[in-house]
């Protein structure tokens, strides 16, 4: 149960960090309000939520953890009986809590600003959970393999931004050229964003379950990658 202690510690750490909270919660709210005001909010509530859960994992978590690594915090923990699995699970669950909070706030903004009346059902919560695990898993895998904070920020951005555009978060896929539409099928965010839209806007359970299956499978793969790439020992 060491992951519980890790969960508690890293959660307190981000809750008390103002810049961290700004980028993981305030920035998404700003983007939702801007895009929602220009194009109408209903689709942006789920797709922006999905997109920022993605960036929270791939950019946010990766930067936080490479910083932990640089400062020797991960090394300090690795000298204790803590297992890599407990470490990864604790971090991923903490990130998931952050993302559930973000989802709640995004839905709240949807209600207030764009009259998007959404009440999240258990399927939505499960979808958020799995998507969060998936992208936090990618974050853990990246921070396991990257050395410094600068590299983490660069790699995180290089992965996140194309993913955001190619999954139809900002621009609907239907207006994109067919090659980009085909490419979008290989982007994990496409399934998460689609599935979340299906769960809370269009209410099509079939689509949700299909997308959820893919997200769940990818989540398992990236959690495993996160555990495998985390290093407890140096050369």
């Amino acid at each position, binding site marked *: 149960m060491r992951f519980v202690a890790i969960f508690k510690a890293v959660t307190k750490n981000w809750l*008390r960090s103002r810049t961290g909270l700004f980028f993981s919660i305030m920035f998404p709210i700003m983007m939702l309000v801007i895009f929602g005001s220009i194009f109408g909010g209903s689709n942006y509530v789920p797709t922006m939520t999905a997109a920022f859960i993605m960036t929270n994992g791939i950019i946010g978590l990766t930067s936080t953890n490479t910083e932990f690594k640089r400062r020797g915090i991960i090394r300090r923990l690795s000298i*204790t009986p803590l297992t890599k699995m407990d470490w990864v699970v604790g971090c991923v669950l903490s990130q998931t809590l952050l993302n559930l909070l973000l989802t709640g706030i995004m839905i709240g903004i949807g209600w207030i600003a764009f009259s998007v009346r959404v009440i999240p059902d258990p399927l939505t919560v499960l979808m958020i959970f799995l998507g969060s695990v998936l992208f936090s898993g990618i974050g853990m895998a990246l921070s396991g393999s990257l050395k410094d904070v600068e590299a983490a920020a660069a790699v995180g951005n290089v992965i996140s931004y194309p993913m955001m555009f190619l999954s139809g978060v900002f621009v609907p896929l239907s207006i994109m050229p067919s090659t980009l539409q085909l490419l979008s099928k290989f982007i994990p965010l496409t399934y998460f964003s689609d599935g979340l839209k299906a769960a809370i806007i269009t209410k099509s359970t079939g689509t949700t379950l299909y997308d959820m299956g893919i997200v769940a499978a990818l989540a398992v793969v990236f959690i495993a990658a996160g555990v495998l790439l985390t290093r407890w020992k140096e050369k």
Partner: protein
Amino acid sequence: MLEVQVQDLVKQYADTTAVDGISFSVNNGEVFAFLGPNGAGKTTTVEILECLRSFTKGSVLVCGYDITKDKDVEEIKKNIGVLPQDFNALDKLTVKENIELIADMYDKHLKVADMIKLLNLEDKANARFENLSGGLKQRVGIAAALVSDPKLVFLDEPTTGLDPKARRDVWDVLANLKKIGKTVFLTTHYMEEAQVLATRIAIVNKGKIAAMGSPQELIDEYGGLKILVIRKADESLAKKLGDKFEHVTMNSNGDIHIKIDNTDKLYSIMSLLTAMKAEKDIEIQTPTLEDVFLKITGSKISEEGEAK
């Protein structure tokens, strides 16, 4: 019982040999110090022992367990406490929360409140780690290293970068560990630290152990002779002494230095001075670890830990 047994340990990197065939052991209950300049291989060795770093050749047992076996590594981790070089904790957590986090990693641990008390951190228990001074951060690190009640404690450069007051505070804590009989493996580039704290010292230079023994043994063997200094003397006294004794020199300050190779020589000089009613300020300089280090390696260590 031996807590650490190292035989012919070698650590090679692509272009350098950081640890070049060292062997030593640490007995239960002793404070063993690795003393040497930066780049001597101290931290590399300690990190290998802590199962944090791979090695090229040799055999290492920690608390009787083999560091190359995964099952043994699990046991080692339960039995050691570590203050790593440049210790850091989670910035936004308090002192208490950070020690608790490390405590929670173990099935059994001491009370966090007791550790806070032991390290005199009561006033700072609820202060965030990011707001602590360097000396306080080190004390949090030592508390975290002790909270699992380890059989063996590694302290890697525990006072580097601290001001003299903070350094002395940390020494007080470490002296306490010595008193309660904890086995401690310490690395340092401060001579005084090794001299004050260690029961046994290995002088490490360029990846090798150059000499090993208790501080007194090292001084007796390598420190050279005691020196009797007579302050503000005059030429005639120097000449008189020089006629009767060997190794008499006078420096530009007017101080006479006489190397003392045996006790009788000291007594006869003293009685001569008494007979002459010389009434001079005298002092006996005993060799220190600094002299030992200079003699063995041909260099000194700067405050920052560089060999010069």
